[in-house]
């Protein structure tokens, strides 16, 4: 169908299945689709990774530049996350400046990395107050089949782990490149786990048609210690306190599993 509306017949099927703790593709309520992570596929970028989550495809590129620090934190590097919902990924994406969905996606991925202190921003300082490394993380959604947040966050982490900064020498305020690279120091491994709510049931990793049917979304980002470092509720529905606490428990378990796809334990 060209339209992005889910048919009434299918809406009923999804709801009925969920009530019986099943999903259309045979998954359990808290199961992820098949995930594939490929790192280093864009050699031009300082770091890159592609994640396939079911049919959802997200590509993340990391570029490193030299710039000025913010005046109130002169000894810290700069981290900036941008997300593009490019029109080829879905009939519902229009070309143009980032809309609220693409901005929310970027900021949720950013929050996970920043709040978990995955990158030590002090490590990126070259000359305090004058020169620091600027890390650009660009999230590029290539095919939207649901749960862009988890796929993007996972790809961003894999891309960061793949990122190298060139060696340099400071001579009278000039930055001289030296041969060789060193990996970007990564101190934490935040993993985002997203839930949807259908018929008052929580499901993990909603697929596109489930997203169109669910009434609310909850993302929890868990760091390597098992602490929650960021949360985002989306959609116009609501969650009960019980559901939120249950989600936190499930998120912690799932995050440990997903992390293994990106980090060797």
């Amino acid at each position, binding site marked *: *169908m*060209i*339209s992005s*509306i889910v*048919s*009434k*017949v*299918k809406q009923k*099927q999804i709801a009925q299945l969920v009530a019986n703790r099943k999903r259309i593709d045979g998954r359990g309520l808290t199961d992820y689709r098949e995930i594939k992570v490929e790192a280093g596929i864009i050699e031009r970028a300082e770091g890159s990774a592609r994640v396939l989550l079911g049919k959802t495809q997200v590509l993340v590129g990391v570029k490193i530049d030299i710039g000025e620090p913010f005046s109130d934190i002169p000894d810290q590097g700069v981290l900036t996350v941008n997300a593009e919902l490019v029109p080829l990924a879905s009939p519902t994406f229009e070309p143009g400046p980032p809309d609220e969905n693409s901005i929310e996606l970027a900021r949720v991925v950013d929050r996970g990395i920043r709040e978990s202190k995955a990158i030590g921003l002090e490590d990126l300082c070259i000359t305090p107050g004058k020169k620091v490394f600027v890390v650009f993380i660009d999230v590029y959604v290539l095919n939207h089949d649901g749960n862009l947040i988890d796929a993007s966050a996972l790809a961003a982490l894999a891309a960061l782990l793949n990122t190298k900064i060139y060696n340099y020498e400071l001579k009278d305020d000039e930055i001289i490149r030296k041969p060789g690279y060193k990996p970007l120091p990564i101190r934490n491994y935040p993993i985002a786990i997203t839930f949807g709510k259908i018929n008052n049931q929580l499901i993990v990793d909603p697929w596109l048609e489930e997203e169109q049917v669910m009434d609310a979304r909850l993302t929890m980002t868990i760091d390597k210690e098992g602490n929650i470092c960021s949360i985002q509720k989306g959609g116009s529905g609501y969650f009960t306190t019980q559901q939120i606490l249950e989600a936190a428990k499930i998120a912690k378990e799932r995050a440990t599993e997903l992390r293994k796809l990106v980090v060797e334990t």
Partner: protein
Amino acid sequence: MKSLPTFFESKELVTPGDLLAEGDYIAGENTYQEDKKIFAERIGLVEYDNRKVRVVALRAFYIPRVGDVVIGMITEVGFNGWEVDINAPYTAILRASDVLERGFRPQKNDLLSILDIGDLVIAKVTAYDRGSNPVIKISEPGLGKISRGQLIKVTPTKIPRIIGRKGSMISMIKRETNCRITLGQNGLIIISGKTREDEQLAIMALRKVEDESHTSGLTDRIAEMIRKEKEGRRKNVQT
């Protein structure tokens, strides 16, 4: 009789721009003529039938034809009828007058209660020309709202292969999976069975026909696949 050049074997795979024949030929479906040359417009299997050259497309979308039975989804409810997505470049129109008795004055609320956004219908194309959108009707036996089943989408040009010679392929699949299967000429198919497993099996068979439509011996291979799957299921139940 002098034999004029054709450049491919019958049922060979061709791509857009391939020169299919030169000389006194007629350009059939998915081909075009320039000077005395016939070229392919789409990727597909070329067929030579006397003087006519055509390509059975493997990748194509649906263009409505009057008389086609199609499956569609309501996308808009208006004052005089509904807009229906029939998986074609043009949205189809279903007029309220087709569904309601004559003399009835439709109001928007009433239309919503008959067919709402997201409802699926089996319909027939009653009118279509280049200047306007296709018109469909559901007021005939066998047509109307669909209340259950799984919907899949295949390339519309594969529907004849799914039907098979004298309906042999589709009857076999229906029989072996115990499912009701309604085929839309627009490539949409509704499968309704007693269990989800039966429906999944029918879907598997239909997808296999779609993937392998360019090969021969297909009916036997599909029957074999269904048989193997059912056997596998019996074993699983027993263990």
